């Protein structure tokens, strides 16, 4: 664990959130949250229900406009409120309540995920010139690879809505990976999974990181986060109360208080 964190200390910063704030009416969902994610690490974001984890995700991926602060990604500022541009810059995400294209096949879902990295327009589609045909074949090939990668290749032609819960989670990850992201943001991927499913998910996430994609993980399953993440940040009432390697975070009195609702002393 310590060896891992010492290598990540020397790594370049991929994501740098500076003083991000977001409120809904009078409710402060995020107050001055700053955190940095380094290239190649698995970064966990935890916190009790309503702590602002998903809000942070939505600001990061451009679904919400922040009320303060800014996020820098790979050295450049992310434009707020433009989810499609965020995806093109290299941040892909999954959703807490799985958001697949239910009436498209698993294959088509992943092919849509490739949108940000492809270019064919109406004219290309109608004329079907060799460039468009090659691009289309490449999309299909990549989608097949990704379905293999997440282990649901046998369900390629099934409608996304008919996949099992675990497979839907995997499909969402495959769709996100289709945009060749630099940062993969997973919003509670293990929610509702049993022990075996969680274990195979853990292996999948580890594999994704080892293949070079940085991972940001929101998760309730503390065991999964502590075993998987290189560094963890804890949010409580919209504020970051701790950021460190898991073994230290676990012992932090503020974190224990946030989770157990009172001082243990």
């Amino acid at each position, binding site marked *: 664990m310590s060896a891992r964190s010492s290598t990540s200390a020397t790594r370049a910063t991929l994501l740098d959130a500076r003083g991000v704030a977001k409120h809904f009416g009078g409710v402060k969902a995020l107050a001055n949250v700053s955190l940095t994610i380094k290239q190649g690490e698995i970064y966990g974001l935890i916190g009790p229900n309503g702590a602002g984890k998903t809000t942070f995700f939505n600001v990061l*991926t*451009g*679904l919400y406009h922040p009320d303060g602060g800014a996020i820098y990604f790979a050295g450049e500022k992310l434009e707020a409120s433009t*989810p*499609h541009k*965020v*995806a*093109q810059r290299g941040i*892909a*995400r999954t*959703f*807490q*309540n*799985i*958001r*697949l*294209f*239910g*009436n*498209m*096949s698993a294959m*088509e879902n992943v*092919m*849509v*995920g490739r*949108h*940000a*990295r*492809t270019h*064919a*327009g*109406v004219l*290309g*589609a*109608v004329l*079907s010139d060799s460039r*468009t045909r090659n*691009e*289309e074949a490449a*999309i299909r090939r990549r989608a097949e690879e990704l379905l293999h990668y997440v282990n649901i290749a046998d369900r390629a032609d099934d*409608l*996304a*809505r*008919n*996949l*099992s*819960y675990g497979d*839907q989670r995997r499909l969402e990850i495959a*769709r996100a990976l*289709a*945009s060749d992201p630099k940062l993969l943001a997973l919003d509670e991927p293990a929610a509702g999974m049993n022990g075996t499913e969680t274990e195979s998910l853990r292996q999948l996430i580890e594999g994704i990181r080892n293949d070079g994609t940085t991972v940001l993980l929101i998760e309730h399953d503390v065991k999964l986060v502590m075993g998987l993440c290189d560094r963890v940040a804890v949010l409580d009432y919209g504020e970051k109360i701790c950021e460190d390697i898991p073994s230290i975070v676990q012992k932090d009195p503020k974190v224990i208080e946030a989770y157990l609702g009172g001082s243990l002393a």
Partner: protein
Amino acid sequence: MALLNSFEALRHDKRGAIAATVMLGILLAIFPFVISSTFSNSWLRIADFAMLYIMLALGLNIVVGFAGLLDMGYIAFYAVGAYLYALLSSTHFGLHFPIWVIIPAGAALAGLFGALLGAPTLRLRGDYLAIVTLGFGEIVRIFMNNLNAPINITNGPQGITGIDPIHFGNLSLAKPLTFLGFTIPSLHAYYYLFLALALFIIFVTIRLENSRIGRAWVAIREDEIAAKSCGINTRNVKLLAFTMGASFGGVAGVLFAGFQGFVSPESFNLMESVMVLCMVVLGGMGNIPGVILGGILLTLLPELFRHGAGPVQTAIFGKILLDPEALRMLLFGLALVLVMLYRPEGIWPSTTRRREFKGESTDVLKEGE
């Protein structure tokens, strides 16, 4: 059903598909001669109209079927195309542009109107979008009705008469064409022109459906937020759906004006929008063959009832009890209700849509929304 299954089977059998295409081509080519000799020219006229409605239904299918944007004012684009032809090729302004100029111009202008409708409604979906588009359709019709003062542009409710028949240079489709000693009557010539354009639109739609853009449209229909997160610029892609759909309507409108020789605002009322929407929904939303079938059936059915209601009543009761003209819409309504009851997914749905309605769903997606 057996017929539909054999069509599905053809998709996997290449030689069979080629043979079927050749057969279909021959059938479509001799069709007008068969119709006009066995029935009458009025049925051929109906066939010509069916082609126009196929184009309209395919255009609306892009907006409603693919992108999932409920458009209740689609007929406005048909009106734009029709009035463009009426103004550019009639005695009204004394302009006489040939058809090959007006068809692209009609597609472009209707496309522009599509974007004009799309731009302010980007954030709307479902019922809300339906109301705004319905208003748009009415606005266009009311404009046509009132643009006769202070400057007379559309000639108001009287409509524009004296529209040129469709012509290419000296070649006019109003007169029988003599071609290698073979005479093609006017209605037949219109049939071939409409068929060619309908086939072109079918071709474009099929190509679009299986493309990156087509997938983006369906993705927006399925989940707009997820589509955005996949890097789809939903604003542009939705505007593109409105524009493409509208341009097909514009082309159909141009042909309609040239064929009819007369346009008036009455031809573009809400009922027409509803009719085209019915073709899309009844045929099988999002499935190209289904939508084509819907266009044909809904053009044909009211005419069949109109022609059939009288003779059938005389045969049963010995006299005509109910006016066929009144009975026609009644029966038509009944047919719509029956189809929706027994085949809610449409007469010829896409395979995925059929599964969607068969309730194989695990409903995981609906939970926790």
